[in-house]
């Protein structure tokens, strides 16, 4: 078995073990409201992981992920409550709807470069916000959509937030493994090439526009699935969540944890989501806290917490390599090239 495969297997097994421990020792002792916060953070990670693919791997800053999240949630809610579509099918269709919207928007907007694209996506978020609030026949308008059914898998009904935690944690683990794998594929390298040097990417046979559209759709599907999960997990959805404000929080989650690391992004998502709970004593100063966090983040750790960790590893490797004069260090091509 290859060293890399073994490492991934070991990581997956340890993570599964950690999930069981967390579930049995921590989650059971938390209040329902606290478990809800953690669950929602895990759900939001689907949206943030799409942003990781877009920004971290592809260098594309999109500020409309929250619209994809909202569309997934409302489509799932609408299909289940109005058309009696079973929950698993409604969830998948919610993700699909977001993917289709992302395809349309990607084809339209990704011809734009830099700030023009970013402003275009901001426009989409405002359009989405307005549609979610005013298109009452579909979203329930200001009242939102309620009475969404419970998820039943293999005869087990997910009733309480505590029931949901292990399922969401396993979903997130699978998602992290998927993101890790994508990075190692031809598509992942094409994305990195687009991010670092579009000219070089072109000359290395990468269709830059198509690569960006594909990752935009992938991010849309992930956010849409997250939205579906949110709808079913909470049983009710309100348009007030899917605003530009929430989108900015997603950006903070990604930047805090580390734009180049899925695990960092997960950490950032949980931390930012749990922050209001941790700083309950200073709730009226929460925006001040977010503001300071962003400023400090950009000055002292632009690559987030994961970036700091990576820097430490690089420093260690450089130190180690100094002990091998005349050689660039350990690790020939056979170690890494498959």
């Amino acid at each position, binding site marked *: 078995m290859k060293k890399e495969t073994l490492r991934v297997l070991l990581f997956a097994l340890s993570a599964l073990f950690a999930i069981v421990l967390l579930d049995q020792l921590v989650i059971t002792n938390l209040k329902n409201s606290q478990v809800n916060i953690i669950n929602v953070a895990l759900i939001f990670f689907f949206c943030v992981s799409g942003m990781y693919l877009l920004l971290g791997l592809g260098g594309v800053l999109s500020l409309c992920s929250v619209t994809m999240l909202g569309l997934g949630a409302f489509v799932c809610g609408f299909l289940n409550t109005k058309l009696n579509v079973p929950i698993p099918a409604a969830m998948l269709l919610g993700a699909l709807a977001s993917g289709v919207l992302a395809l349309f928007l990607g084809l339209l907007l990704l011809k734009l470069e830099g700030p023009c694209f970013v402003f275009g996506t901001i426009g989409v978020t405002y359009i989405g916000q307005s549609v979610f609030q005013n298109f009452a026949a579909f979203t329930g308008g200001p009242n939102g959509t309620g009475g969404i059914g419970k998820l039943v898998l293999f005869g087990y009904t997910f009733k309480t937030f505590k029931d949901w935690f292990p399922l969401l944690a396993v979903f997130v683990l699978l998602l992290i493994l998927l993101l890790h794998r994508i990075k190692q*594929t*031809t598509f992942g390298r094409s994305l*990195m*090439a687009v991010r670092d*040097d579009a000219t*070089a990417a*072109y000359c290395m046979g990468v269709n830059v526009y198509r690569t960006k559209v594909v990752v935009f759709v992938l991010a849309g599907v992930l956010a849409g699935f997250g939205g579906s999960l949110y709808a079913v997990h909470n049983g009710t959805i309100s348009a007030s969540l899917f605003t530009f404000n929430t989108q900015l929080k997603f950006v903070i989650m990604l930047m805090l944890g580390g734009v180049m690391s899925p695990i960092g992004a997960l950490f950032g998502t949980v931390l930012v989501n749990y922050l209001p709970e941790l700083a309950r004593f200073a709730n009226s100063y929460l925006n001040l806290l977010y503001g300071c966090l962003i400023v400090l983040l950009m000055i002292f750790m632009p690559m987030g917490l994961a970036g700091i960790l990576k820097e430490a590893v690089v420093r260690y490797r450089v130190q180690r390599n100094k002990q091998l004069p005349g050689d660039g*260090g350990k690790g020939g091509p056979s170690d890494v*090239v498959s």
Partner: protein
Amino acid sequence: MSCLRVEEIGITFGGLAAVSDVSFTVEPGEIMGLIGPNGAGKTTTLNLISGLYEADRGRVYLNDQDVTKKTAYERARLGLGRTFQTPHMLTRSTVSDNMKLGTDLADQMGFLKSFLGFKGHNFLDEVDGLMEIADLKVDWKADISSLAYGQLKRLEIVRGLLAHPKTLLIDEPAAGLNAKELEKSVALMRHAAREGVGIVLIEHKMDMIMNVCDHIVVLNFGKMIAHGTPDEVSADEAVIEAYLGRK
């Protein structure tokens, strides 16, 4: 069959003809020098060939296939490699990821196959061989940004060769290299030519051009002023005038 044929290619920027009526042919295994004073249109010509610029007129053929209307990535997939004056690498990635980008182009494997772990051609020997010729010993897991400029210049050629090009456009490989590094770059080019790759080489170091190239095209003010063997070109009056400013 020629690996590259350029016919009366030209482009105009804001009324100024940056390149006009340039024609030449490169055969497999041949190294062709493209020289001229600064601003002569050498890099613009490479950009026209590689598809980064769209030609106003003329045609480009790769292996006798007309690629004039094809995009840069399509030309790359048809076997046109390229390096730049300043190395264009994936600046936030590892050496390994940078090199794999070359092999990805050679294999042209779809996402699903790649996702499922299908392997492309076995290129470990090829990598080792190229790295040895280039005299490069680098940590493959290191960030590319940790490498020296001279290493990057040679690695870019190695990456270009890993893509198995039929034609390779090399822009100023000697810039910023010391004598030993330059020697290794030349060794890489000669190795590629022996393998049947046609090379177009832009370079200001005349001794290198004269030693390495089979034939040379000279540009001045976007126009081709001479074409021939190194001896013919060095004796050409128009070339001497363009370089030295005298008749």
